[in-house]
């Protein structure tokens, strides 16, 4: 038993419960206090994560290495950004409750457990903890029928995906004799070849995780849930809860199934191509910015999957950098979307952004930076993510993937440019309500990161490189 290795998760979980207790016992509204505490706890956890050594604990159920540390820091960063940006939105939407940051923290605990999973059971536990918290969050505006619908939809479909994942896990267990990643890895090296049952198990595991990633063909829930859920929750769903399933997918594919690349690579390639195509073409017709972001995130997952499909260490490095830039851009874009409200009402049509550059040049410029970055225009941060995953694809000789990737990014450019066009070229309508300071902080911080990432990207790329190397041992 090596409890110290799980110190970050333990601290985060206990603090989340402590904050919950604090909120329950106080008679006055303590949302702000709980939010501040949540941010502080995340920061402390991040420090603990950095300090964790590389080892396994709990009889091999739990692992800590450079890969898990990188993922956890990313998850915590995404959580902090979303906790901060939800504060003002929730209070203006009158859904401000102290449970909100607590649920986010609990979800973060689940995600951190996922990224440290060294056993299929640990993986599943983490995944469920993360998902349960997000179900509640999606339905958080309980008096709003769309939010309730989004919560229910997400719950039902996600439960189905969990079922698929569990079925895959049971098959993998049945055909390899173990839940443990390293034992499965040994079992699949059987010279007699891979059994069909195991291949089916891998396919089910990929399907379950692809659902959480909202990769095609398991993406159907994404636009509806993104649109229906409160924007603060949508922001959260598009950041950290995308990172965790992805790093789990990486760990599972390169850990236990690292020797049977040929079995899963074609599936990933297909999912990746389908996601890139759908993400770019289906978004063109959208008029709601939250739905647009949903399709955009489907597309982004497709690009990130290019790195996984390459099946190499450079590919994993590319994915990790991609996820980093994606989390920052996504949190930034949503901090701008959250700021879209007129006369106290939240608006979410693209047309509502009309002429924003005249009323609020700062906000328009920031959103334009995120849009250009998501389109992958250099020198913004998003370009580096794309560059590295395509580099991995080219290095692995996967030209089809690379060519489809760059061409769909031209298509996706069209709808990102449309947002910029609406903001900068169209006539202005009534200005938005005054932004809160917390929102401006998130937007400016993420905007600055996106804008000047290119100046000194070496430390981030170095960390991603180290994490990727840890995965390949």
């Amino acid at each position, binding site marked *: 038993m090596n409890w110290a290795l799980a110190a970050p998760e333990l601290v985060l979980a206990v603090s989340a419960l402590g904050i919950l207790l604090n909120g329950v016992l106080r008679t006055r509204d303590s949302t702000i206090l709980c939010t501040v505490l949540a941010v502080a706890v995340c920061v402390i956890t991040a420090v603990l994560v950095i300090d964790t050594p590389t080892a396994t604990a709990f009889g091999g159920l739990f692992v800590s290495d450079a890969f898990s540390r990188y993922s956890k820091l990313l998850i915590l960063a995404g959580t902090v950004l979303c906790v901060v940006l939800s504060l003002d939105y929730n209070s203006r939407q009158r859904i401000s409750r102290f449970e909100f940051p607590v649920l986010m923290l609990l979800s973060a605990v689940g995600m951190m457990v996922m990224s440290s999973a060294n056993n299929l059971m640990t993986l599943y536990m983490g995944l469920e903890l993360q998902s349960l918290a997000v179900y509640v969050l999606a339905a958080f505006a309980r008096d709003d029928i769309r939010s309730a619908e989004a919560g229910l939809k997400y719950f039902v479909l996600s439960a189905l995906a969990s079922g698929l994942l569990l079925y895959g896990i049971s098959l993998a267990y049945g055909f390899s004799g173990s839940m443990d990643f390293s034992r499965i890895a040994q079992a699949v090296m059987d010279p007699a070849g891979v059994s069909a049952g195991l291949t089916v198990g891998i396919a089910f595991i990929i399907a379950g995780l692809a659902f959480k990633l909202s990769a095609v063909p398991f993406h159907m829930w994404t636009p509806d849930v993104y649109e229906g859920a409160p924007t603060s929750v949508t922001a959260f769903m598009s950041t950290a809860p995308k990172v965790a399933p992805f790093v789990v997918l990486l760990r599972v594919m390169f850990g236990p199934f690292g020797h049977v690349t040929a079995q899963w690579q074609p599936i990933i390639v297909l999912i990746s191509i389908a996601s890139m195509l759908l993400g770019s073409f289906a978004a063109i017709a959208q008029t709601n910015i939250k739905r647009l972001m949903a399709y955009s995130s489907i597309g982004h997952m497709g690009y990130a999957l290019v790195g996984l499909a390459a099946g190499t260490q450079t590919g994993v490095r590319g994915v990790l950098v991609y996820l980093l830039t994606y989390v920052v851009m996504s949190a930034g874009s949503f901090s701008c979307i959250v700021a879209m409200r007129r006369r106290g009402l939240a608006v979410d049509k693209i047309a509502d952004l009309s002429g924003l550059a005249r009323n609020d040049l700062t906000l328009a410029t920031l959103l334009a930076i995120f849009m250009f970055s998501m389109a992958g225009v250099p020198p913004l941060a998003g370009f580096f993510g794309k560059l590295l995953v395509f580099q991995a694809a080219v290095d692995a000789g996967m030209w089809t993937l690379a060519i489809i990737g760059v061409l769909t990014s031209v298509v996706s450019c*069209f709808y990102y440019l449309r947002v910029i066009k609406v903001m900068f*070229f169209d006539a202005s309508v009534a200005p938005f309500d005054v932004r809160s300071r917390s929102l401006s902080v998130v937007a400016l911080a993420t905007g600055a990161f996106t804008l000047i990432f290119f100046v000194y990207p070496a430390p981030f790329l170095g960390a991603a490189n180290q994490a990727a190397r840890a995965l390949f041992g």
Partner: protein
Amino acid sequence: MTNINAAGFPVLSLTTFLPLLGVLVLATLPGDEAASARNARWIALWTSLLAFVVSLVLWVRFDHRAAGYQFVETISWLPSFGVSYRLGVDGISVLFVLLSTALTPLCILASWEAVTVRVREYMAAFLILETMMVGMFSATDFLLFYMFFEGVLIPMYLIIGVWGGPRRVYASLKFFLYTFAGSVLMLLALLAMWHQAGTTDITVLLRTPFSAVMQFWLFLAFLASFAVKVPMWPVHTWLPDAHVEAPTAGSVILAGVLLKMGAYGFLRFSVPMLPLASQHFAPMMFALGVVAVIYTSLVALAQEDMKKLIAYSSVAHMGVVVIGIFTFNVQGIDGALFQMISHGVVSAALFLCVGVIYDRIHTRDIARYGGLADRMPAYALVFMLFTMASIGLPGTSGFVGEFLVLVGAFQVSLWLALFGSFGMILGAAYMLYLYRRVIFGKLSKPDLRAILDLSPREMAVFAPLVILTLWLGVYPSSFTSFFDATVSAMVQNHTEAVNLARQPVLFAGSTQ
């Protein structure tokens, strides 16, 4: 690993990033709309002038005899990827850096009164554009080059889209998507070359041998990107739209500098790095060049919109440049480079000429003008000079470039030279036709009677361009001497590479 060039200070970095400093100042400009607009103009002008003065160091200190990169700067950027921040200029790029820094202040001066809304953002966009252009011409690392190359799109998209004409949204989107689609294919070529060489250092890539098959595909990927930028027929259609809708200064930069990016790319990457494929594709490039020259000249003849006419003439002139580049002899490439510089000055000036009367009458319709010579003698004179330069009259800049290209083309094929020279004849036709309809004839339109001649500010804009046009035409060697050494070395390397590849076929009789 930091290495600063022999000039004693990082002249290229300074020229590249000085405008960004101006952008920072603009961003923090206080005051109401009118006051900040006035200040923004002056700040932008002084910043761009300062950048120009700094870049003059290149003109003075450039070693004309050396073929390699000069003023080299290297800063470690992504060491584990083999990517560094590397700047440097050789004979091919040095004049384009100077062209960019020279045209930007003129553009700002030309927009002084024409742009009245969101002046601060407009000036900031132009300064960012200058950074991107200068950075692109002085990057000696492929990835860095790519970042600047693509980065140009952002400010240009906004300049066309925000300050453009009625169909600006369509034009800006078309401009962006055309160029972006081409560029991403070049990105794949970059990745393939990076994979093989392990670095994106252009000097290393030049020495890296690529197999003939790989060169074939790389050439096509580069072609996709550069052909759109040049622009070559049949992917030129974004250009007339972009030119017509862009504000005057936007057209000036577009014609003066951005169109050179494509041809520069051919000279920097396609020809020296892919000699076999370049040789293989040369006939196709000639064909596309000839089509561009003849077809777009005919299209230009039929135009009713002044800007569109000059835009099509740009396509034709750039067709001549493409022909020159792929002759692979010193005269042809020298001519292409000279034509690029000359076109940068002359087409920029022609768009400014259109801008002058557009600012007064607010139409670009040729039929709405006529007889301007009566009321605007100075303007008529200036316009005449640039018309002649565009036609290629001896003594103006246009003549030298076209003549050299034709000499180069003649060495390749008589027919090529013949078809290429059609461009000069047709060019004379459409330019003189334009000039006659706008300047000569009877001044019959009532609103033209009160039109004013060039203002002192406009004269200040035109004066340097007039001097440059005549200087280029009368004493070309002060410019050709910059790139003679580099071009000679390039042609020699090309010939050697092609001969080397042919040898095994000659001796062993084997097929490749």
